[in-house]
């Protein structure tokens, strides 16, 4: 465990002397978690709460001929059994990302099941035990039908349709062309083609999804507590239920037990909301693990890339043609947009001149896909890195050298890529070198070569990847020009109370990223107060200011920006009060730790306590026209956002681009195919690090998640569409034994676009690790002349490649 060395991600940035930002400070959220006093949705108890359980379909595709709930309803302790037909009669289909009117997604299957594990009915009972007893008494008559499982087949299929009314299984098919691809291919010395496959996996938090709802007939408010992380959740809930938006109050002070994108339980929440109102009792649904894995609609991208690469004999990559076919499962939600966000960084960190991109999203009879950490960028990075390695292999050049020849030079920023994004800042060559130094690359080469000489299969991985951060909804418009959504904001409110104590109010839940610490640190920095004395609360959805929730590696950028803005307003207000009362122009005053004094005569000053007193109690001392009280709101729009694409589909999507260089070392047991990741170095640059422990944790945690996606994790289906990975014995997440000793180093290239030079950091480890591990495994297989371009690289696949000449 080497502690971070080198620049501890300290901005020194912006020419400021930082007191709290970038300092080693405790993470305030940790206290409640280590003492077991966090409040997760399962820990919220209301009197008379009833418990729901759901009945999964055993068939991937079947007509529902009848559902007999009589015996279940008759069971003592059962309050209600709801079927798909009953639910659909009382709600609208759940709104999808793309406008697909004939793809109707209801909380429970109506007339037809579309994947094994889809929910067919829900029971509400006094206890979860009784609810499950009742499930066993529901009689469903099915007519099983042949499913469509393979995405290529689904794409071509005209008869087996997941949603017959839609007329095909293709949910989206788009073509993008940025630059003179044909010209670049014609002019290039050489080209190659490959297919790479990203397997179906997800983030799989240890906490499943859960929701608890209560309808208050007196106030006519639906209160809901949910382990949610989704923009527009309340809007979706309202539109599905047909409620006015201001009838729903989402309690966002619920701790979310991990999400990384997937906690979007809209159908779950619609169900409990509906049942709670119907039964006039609080109802909760906590997915159990099997239900979560099979029917929670929380799978991730499942993608086939066919890529052509044009390059010079020197290994300079000129152009890419990419076809990405993604399997969204039965209900797409926002899944297809995961093909669009990578347009933000479609050339990775490289000076690639032109790109052709064909993106296809298909429906199959599998569990639905949701946004997963990176929103499609991890598969894209994997494909790009495999392209770079393939070019190096093809030309028999060193992979490092090929990267060095293609990485964007540090003097080229801001750097515009063919699809229109300006990369804000970066120093890719330096970060790569830091990673190599940390890995002791020369020694690592010797170690690998010695292992090889001793007959072992050993490999070093290299991946240099980008993490777009900040978010921007404009990727929707790229897929659907009727979606003119250019706003992507985050807001906060800051209050100073009559005692002078500061409270920050954020508008979302948090799921481990330390937003409270982030928010308090920035307020403390800006207002010059100890962050530990600043209170942070999570507003409920009725009192919260606008938010897009913690997606897109954006909270440091966006909540940080909002906090800085609100703190600035607080200071402006204090200054105005001081200027008025000290009878000095604001320009002569200076702010220090809450006290405002005259630069020329420091004895003339107003203390923080005096300013607060005036703000709350002394109207006669307020500048004329100023409202009493002491608070500020700030709504921060994503930097660079707000524009529609130009005529060539070029647009700035995400504003900030973090960078990482991953260098793992692996050995493969040739007899069993088992890969052991023995060492791992990562150099990481997300600009200014607000809290070093938080960033380091997310980088390493993301990297571990990426090792899972690379080697172990897969939602597997058999040829008949049966789901094989519902349990933790079959869906294999890495334990501590599978994660190596990680060495990490931070570098700081501040973003010019953000309050303190910060960029995103929640996704980066995951965005690069699968590519890096794949690079290492392929390096280990290289002496045998073998390559594997399919994730996860399970040991039986690798063994078969080595010993049977097949994958």
């Amino acid at each position, binding site marked *: *465990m080497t502690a971070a060395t080198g620049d501890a991600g300290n901005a020194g940035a912006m020419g400021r002397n930082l007191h709290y930002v970038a300092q080693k400070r*405790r*993470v305030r*959220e*940790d*206290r*409640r*978690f*280590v*003492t*077991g*006093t*966090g409040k*997760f949705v*399962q*820990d919220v108890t209301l009197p008379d709460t009833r418990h729901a359980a759901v009945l999964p379909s055993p068939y991937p595709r079947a007509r529902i001929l009848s559902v007999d709930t009589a015996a279940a309803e008759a069971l003592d302790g059962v309050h209600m059994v709801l079927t798909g037909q009953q639910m659909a009669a009382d709600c609208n289909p759940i709104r999808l990302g793309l406008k697909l009117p004939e793809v109707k997604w209801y909380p429970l299957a109506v007339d037809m099941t579309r994947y094994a594990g889809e929910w067919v009915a829900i029971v509400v009972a006094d206890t*979860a*035990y009784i609810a499950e007893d009742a499930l066993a008494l529901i009689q469903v008559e099915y007519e099983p039908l042949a499913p469509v499982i393979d995405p290529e087949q689904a794409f071509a299929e005209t008869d087996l349709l997941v949603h017959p009314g839609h007329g095909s299984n293709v949910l989206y098919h788009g073509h993008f062309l940025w630059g003179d691809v044909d010209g670049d291919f014609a002019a290039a010395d050489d080209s190659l083609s490959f297919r790479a496959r990203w397997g179906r996996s997800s*983030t*799989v*938090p*240890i*906490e499943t999804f859960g929701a608890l709802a209560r309808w208050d007939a007196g106030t006519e408010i639906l209160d809901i507590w949910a382990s949610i992380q989704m923009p527009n959740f309340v809007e979706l809930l309202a539109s599905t239920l047909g409620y006015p938006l201001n009838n729903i109050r989402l309690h966002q002070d619920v*701790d*979310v*037990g*991990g*999400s*990384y994108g997937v906690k979007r339980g809209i159908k779950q929440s619609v169900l409990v909301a509906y049942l709670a109102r119907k039964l006039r009792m609080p109802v909760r649904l*906590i997915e*159990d*693990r099997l239900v979560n894995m099979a029917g929670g609609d929380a799978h991730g991208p499942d993608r086939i890339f066919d890529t052509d690469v044009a390059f010079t004999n020197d290994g300079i990559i000129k152009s890419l043609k990419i076809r990405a076919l993604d399997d969204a499962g039965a209900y797409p939600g926002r899944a297809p947009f995961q093909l669009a966000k990578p347009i933000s960084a479609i050339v990775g960190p490289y000076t690639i001149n032109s790109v052709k991109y064909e993106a296809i999203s298909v429906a199959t009879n599998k569990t639905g896909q949701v946004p997963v950490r990176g929103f499609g960028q991890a598969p894209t990075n994997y494909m790009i890195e495999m392209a770079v390695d393939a070019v190096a292999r093809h030309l028999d050049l060193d992979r490092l050298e090929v990267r060095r020849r293609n990485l964007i030079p540090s003097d080229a920023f801001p750097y515009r890529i063919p699809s229109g994004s300006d990369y804000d800042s970066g120093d890719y060559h330096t970060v790569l070198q830091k990673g190599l130094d940390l890995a002791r690359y020369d020694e690592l080469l010797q170690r690998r070569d010695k292992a090889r000489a001793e007959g072992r299969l050993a490999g070093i991985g290299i991946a240099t990847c980008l993490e777009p951060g900040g978010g921007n909804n404009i990727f929707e418009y790229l897929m659907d020009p009727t979606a003119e959504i250019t706003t992507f904001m985050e807001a906060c409110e800051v209050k100073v109370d009559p005692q002078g104590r500061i409270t920050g109010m954020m508008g979302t839940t948090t*799921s*481990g*990223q*330390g937003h409270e610490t982030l928010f308090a640190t920035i307020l403390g920095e800006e207002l010059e107060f100890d962050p530990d004395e600043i209170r942070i609360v999570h507003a409920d959805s009725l009192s919260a200011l606008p938010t897009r929730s913690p997606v897109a590696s954006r909270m440091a950028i966006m909540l940080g920006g909002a906090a800085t803005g609100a703190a600035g307003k607080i200071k402006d207000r204090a200054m105005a009060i001081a200027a008025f009362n000290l009878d000095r122009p604001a320009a002569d005053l200076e702010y220090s730790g809450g006290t405002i004094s005259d630069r020329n005569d420091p004895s003339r000053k107003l203390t923080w306590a005096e300013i607060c007193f005036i703000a709350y109690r002394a109207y006669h001392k307020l500048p004329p026209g100023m409202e009493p009280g002491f608070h500020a709101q700030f709504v921060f729009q994503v930097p660079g956002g707000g524009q529609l694409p130009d005529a060539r589909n070029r647009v700035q999507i995400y504003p900030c681009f973090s960078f990482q260089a991953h260098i793992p070392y692996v050995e493969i047991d040739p007899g069993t195919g088992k890969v052991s990741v023995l060492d791992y170095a990562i150099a990481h640059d997300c600009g200014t690090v607000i809290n070093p*422990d*938080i960033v*380091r*944790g*997310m980088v*390493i*945690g*993301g*990297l*571990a*998640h990426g090792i899972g996606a690379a080697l172990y994790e897969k939602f597997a289906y058999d040829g008949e569409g049966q789901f094989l990975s519902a*349990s*933790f*014995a079959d869906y294999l*997440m890495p*334990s*501590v*034994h599978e*994660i190596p*000793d*990680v060495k990490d180093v931070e570098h700081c290239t501040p973003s010019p676009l953000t309050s303190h030079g910060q960029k995103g950091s929640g996704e980066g*480890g995951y965005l690069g690790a699968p590519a890096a591990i794949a690079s290492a495994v392929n390096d280990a297989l290289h002496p045998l002349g073998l390559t594997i371009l399919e994730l996860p690289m399970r040991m039986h696949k690798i063994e078969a490649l080595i010993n049977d000449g097949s994958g």
Partner: protein
Amino acid sequence: MSQREINLSINGKTYAAAVEPRLSLLDFLRDHAGLTGTHVGCEHGVCGACSILFDGVPIRSCLMLAVQADGHAITTVEGLCNEDGAPGPLQDAFQEAHGLQCGYCTPGMLISAQALLAGNSDPSIAEIKDAIGGNLCRCTGYVQIIEAIQLAASRLREAGQ
């Protein structure tokens, strides 16, 4: 299917209850004893989020019936706190080293670490990995958890000198 009376000690406090035989010890702790620090992760014995000390040794509470705890002593994460509810020494080390993120696996990790350190104040990394090998964490990649346990161990050793 009558209910059965059970008496047990949890974190030094006596609990008496009548429970259905099928009730898991995990559900008993959370729903009957009101100790929600112990978390539900998989309910089939893989993730370790429900780990507790049962007569001093770490076990998974999802893999026991509540009735089987009759007459036994249990420690949950709440029992690792100081008397005033403030973080105990191990918990403080986890906070200091940020050996967690979302906090969901954390109680199980703490229980496993507590059991390890009770018998070994100078564990090797291999011993730490063995102790927490049955606790899945999705956030941290484990590195800061190992560092937290090492920190707790070093403080234990200092305190013992």
